[in-house]
């Protein structure tokens, strides 16, 4: 039981004032502008939007500034703001097949229609510190090349055509919104994916890694990873006209996993799916691997007790705001409950001494 405390207003106020001062840092150093965060720390901004589950680059940048760069604190601010917004409606699903891709790769096929395009990636860099960034380094200009074909079809379509991979089930299921209705177990895959898409990147990475190391191994390939701009559609209720109301950057990963077959059905690859706001490839790939691991029942695999297979474990612990809220409350005064525990221990010890 938690018993509230009163008082301390002045100390709290002073602590917050010092926080503001320390956030600003040395006043001889120019003040950090929101636009600078938005333009130069884009991947932090995108992570905050993804885990905050709200696409708004200005707000995410503001949250990062306010939180002194503590991304979980920034995500907390976004989540809190999000709850104040009236919901105007729901978009039909985004069409990633129409994405204007910055990056699009497949680790399963070398030659694919639409080509392998590396995009602005850290892959293949040597991970050496670039000391030229300490100074006003020369910025090399991105090359451009004429685009012949604009459409970039999904790679897994080709496996689909041959029946080599399981088809996605589509029974027009209307997904429940986990921000409106609490998750129930067992959860549907739609609700699982909503959870995973706003989940903590580090948690998903660790779980995905555990499947690679053998805890519910499902041998994943990145069938396709694409990053780029997609339109969000919305039907204006007053006009009954569907417009492009927003444009967002997303990362999508389709994994191709361990195949399976039986006497009744020939061998087929299985899939996992990851979709995140922003350019968050580590998270999108992790999400696809965890999605796949959670599908063990539907695919007819054995439950080997691996954490990544355990839906209740994964979904109950993947949200870093829930987690940090419960964890950080431990720092708040617990004087009364501790006092009662103290009394109890003293009494038990006294009885022990008496009966010795």
């Amino acid at each position: 039981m938690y018993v509230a405390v009163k008082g301390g207003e002045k100390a709290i106020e002073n602590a917050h004032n010092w926080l503001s001062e320390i956030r600003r840092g040395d006043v001889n150093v120019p003040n950090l502008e929101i636009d600078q965060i938005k333009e130069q720390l884009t991947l932090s901004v995108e992570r905050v939007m993804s885990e905050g589950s709200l696409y708004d680059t200005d707000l995410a940048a503001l949250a990062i500034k306010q939180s002194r760069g503590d991304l979980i604190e920034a995500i907390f601010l976004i989540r809190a703001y999000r709850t104040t917004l009236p919901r105007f409606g729901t978009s039909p699903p985004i069409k990633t097949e129409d994405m204007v891709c910055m990056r699009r790769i497949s680790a399963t096929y070398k030659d694919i229609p639409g080509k392998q395009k590396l995009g602005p990636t850290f892959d293949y860099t040597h991970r050496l510190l670039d000391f030229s960034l300490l100074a006003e380094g020369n910025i090399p200009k991105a090359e451009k090349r004429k685009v012949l074909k604009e459409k970039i079809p999904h790679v897994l379509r080709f496996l689909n055509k041959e029946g080599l991979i399981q088809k996605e089930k589509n029974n027009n299921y209307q997904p429940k919104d986990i921000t409106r209705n609490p998750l129930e177990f067992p959860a549907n895959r739609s609700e699982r994916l909503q959870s995973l898409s706003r989940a903590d990147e580090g948690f998903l990475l660790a779980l995905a890694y555990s499947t690679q190391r053998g805890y519910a191994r499902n041998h994943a390939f990145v069938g396709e990873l694409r990053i780029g701009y997609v339109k969000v559609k919305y039907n204006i209720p007053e006009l009954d006209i569907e417009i492009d109301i927003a444009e967002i950057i997303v990362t999508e990963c389709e994994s191709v996993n361990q195949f399976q077959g039986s006497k009744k059905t020939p061998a087929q690859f299985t899939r996992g799916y990851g979709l995140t706001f922003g350019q968050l490839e580590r998270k999108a790939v992790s999400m696809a691997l965890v999605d796949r691991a959670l599908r063990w029942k539907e695919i007819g695999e054995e439950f080997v007790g691996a954490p990544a297979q355990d839906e209740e474990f994964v979904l109950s612990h993947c949200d870093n705001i829930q987690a940090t809220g419960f964890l950080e409350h431990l720092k708040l005064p617990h004087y009364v409950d501790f006092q009662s525990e103290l009394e109890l221990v003293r009494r038990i010890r006294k009885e022990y001494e008496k009966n010795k």
Partner: protein
Amino acid sequence: MERKFWLSTLATCNDAHLTSLWEKFGIEVNFTWLRKPEIGSIMCQGKIGVTGNNFNFGEVTITRCQLKTSQGKIGHGYVQGRNKYKAEIVAICDALLQTNKRDFLIKNIIRPLVVSDKNLKKDVMSKSESTAVDFFTLVRGET
């Protein structure tokens, strides 16, 4: 040009670009609010594995407003983000695009926005194209 097209262009265009285009012409419009600009969100959905069932992916901030001009035209301002002034400009444009100002607005506001968006996408695609891995070149080099 369909209303769907101009509303889509205005909703997703660059805020600063629209504002500068709009303010350049200093068009005065008298109107009354039907709904003052308000900030909210829409839930954006995704599709499992591109072809499967839908799932709730995450929210996007949206600002909306409605107004009626003194000419009696109703304009809808739906925009991405939280810029109330932008939503107001969009609603006024939407109302004017239903009048004889239409050709002027299409030429001086909508078209420039469309062109600048096309250029931006062309830029992204051509930079992306320059990072295309050309496996054929390797093969050709060996033979």
